[in-house]
């Protein structure tokens, strides 16, 4: 591990010195630990180091733009902190100090979902209006990303795909690649209707359940409360939601004794249950 860490830090410093597109040969020649390796051993080590750096948030991507003379590796992944550094209104030293203290109490290194590892690329694509491609449910998609949204502990991407606005779970996005060209569109969606917000699927439901069960399961589905009454430990709720699958999950987990909803709502939930 010691050697891997050393190689990765050396890689970061090399990119820091050169900053622009660096060829594979240049990397091999200028990093002592790579220099004496055979071609295949170098490739293995380099790929492993790239994965490790990616897990930390650094992207080492090979840039091969057909219109550009230069090609080679670029390092990215620190755009946000660089923006914060440049912002004169922010006391940067204080920000960094707070970051380090909070990091001692908040351990965010474990259980990183694969989905957010690509956040830096998505950040760049959304801000600079670029196109991205990725594999989603075994299909290649080329989309214009518009925004992301957190729902039930998972992030979702809202993106335009063939002039239609679609939502993609970041958990299911693989092999994300970002295009080189910026400002490819001028669309601005202030509000994206995500799949769980489709008005055709609105359900209004009345139910009675234990307060505790509501509290631990309420974030499983997107909903708004129409009315709420509490007697002892029992909550009487009237809820509106467009999230059929989320509501079904909520009902399965909380197992209420009685529910009241119209025929259309029952039909939608039964369809989801039998799916």
């Amino acid at each position: 591990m010691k050697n891997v860490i050393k190689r990765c830090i050396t890689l970061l410093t090399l990119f820091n010195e050169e900053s622009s597109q660096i060829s594979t040969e240049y990397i091999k020649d200028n990093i002592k630990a790579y220099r004496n390796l055979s071609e295949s051993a170098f490739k293995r080590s380099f790929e492993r180091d790239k994965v490790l750096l990616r897990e930390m948030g650094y992207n080492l991507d090979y840039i091969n733009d057909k219109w550009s003379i230069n090609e080679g590796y670029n390092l990215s992944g620190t755009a946000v902190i660089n923006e914060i550094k440049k912002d004169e209104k922010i006391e940067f030293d204080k920000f960094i100090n707070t970051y380090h203290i909070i990091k001692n109490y908040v351990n965010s290194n474990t259980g990183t979902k694969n989905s957010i590892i690509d956040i830096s690329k998505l950040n760049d694509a959304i801000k600079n209006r670029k196109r991205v491609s990725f594999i989603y449910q075994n299909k290649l998609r080329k989309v214009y990303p518009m925004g992301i949204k957190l729902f039930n502990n998972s992030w979702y991407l809202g993106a335009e795909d063939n002039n239609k606005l679609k939502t993609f779970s970041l958990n299911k996005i693989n092999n994300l690649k970002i295009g080189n060209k910026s400002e490819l569109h001028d669309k601005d969606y202030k509000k994206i209707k995500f799949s769980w917000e489709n008005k055709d699927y609105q359900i209004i439901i009345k139910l009675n359940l234990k307060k505790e069960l509501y509290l631990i399961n309420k974030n499983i589905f997107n909903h708004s409360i129409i009315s709420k009454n509490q007697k002892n430990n029992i909550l009487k709720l009237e809820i509106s939601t467009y999230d059929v699958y989320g509501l079904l999950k909520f009902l399965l987990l909380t197992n209420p004794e009685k529910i009241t909803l119209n025929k259309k709502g029952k039909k939608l939930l039964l369809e989801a249950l039998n799916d």
Partner: protein
Amino acid sequence: MTKKINLSTVGNFISIIKNQEIWQINKLLEKLNINYDDLLYLLTILSDIYSKNGEYFFDFDLDSENNKILFYNSVDIFDIETITDLELFKLYTLFNTIDLHIDIDTLTKKDINTFIKILKSSFKIYDLENEHEIDNKNINLNEITSIEYIKLGNSTSDFYEVEPLLITSTLEGSVLEALDLNDKKIKTFLINRIISIGESVKEESKKNIKQTEIEVIFEAKDDSVLSKFKEVRKQNNKYVAKFRNKDIAIEFFIENFTSARVISPDIVKVDVIKRVESIRELLKI
């Protein structure tokens, strides 16, 4: 070494020491949250890195007698940006999920709020407004309190007297690591299953139930369910996963009913089917 030193620890180390040339060793250890052996290990790694011209990147003087360490701020290594967008985004996600009130001696509430505000404005550019309610949990780290908690797989709450130590994010969501003062053990509590904090402890409510691990064979109707496991193995066309106890397994398969179907054991399968049938009964037209 008490702590696993990884690339992230090294990045954190560089980020901290570049702010100041001379450090008191004990203060530096505290800030880095590592021990003296870890520090020596980090110094060994970094002092062994050379620039492409064969020069040292990193140089220091360690004066243990006077509890001092001096770093010669060579330009190269201190120019590396070690705080990535991903690291900041992980914190942003955590603050977006739970309204945490972290009480830390060395930071004021204002410092924390300013920090969160900067993070929010950095990512808010494209983060569409969330309508779901953010959990408001007032957790004061390192301050003894009591929590009312519903264990995974259970539907009734227990009370614990704890000293909250650390917030961690896991596959199951955000977790509070805390010292249980009665059991004298560090335990983990899923934050979204904490019902209340600081309420009086009901002595009679806590029971120690013996946990028996259980292996469940299931079919995945949707492969995304597999990402919810730390470990899962394929057996023919089915999958096998281990759970801490049967109640946790039942809750998992009830929650993921639309994406996974239990094959065995019956002890889990029957309860999941019963729950599904009781909801089906309620939905009868």
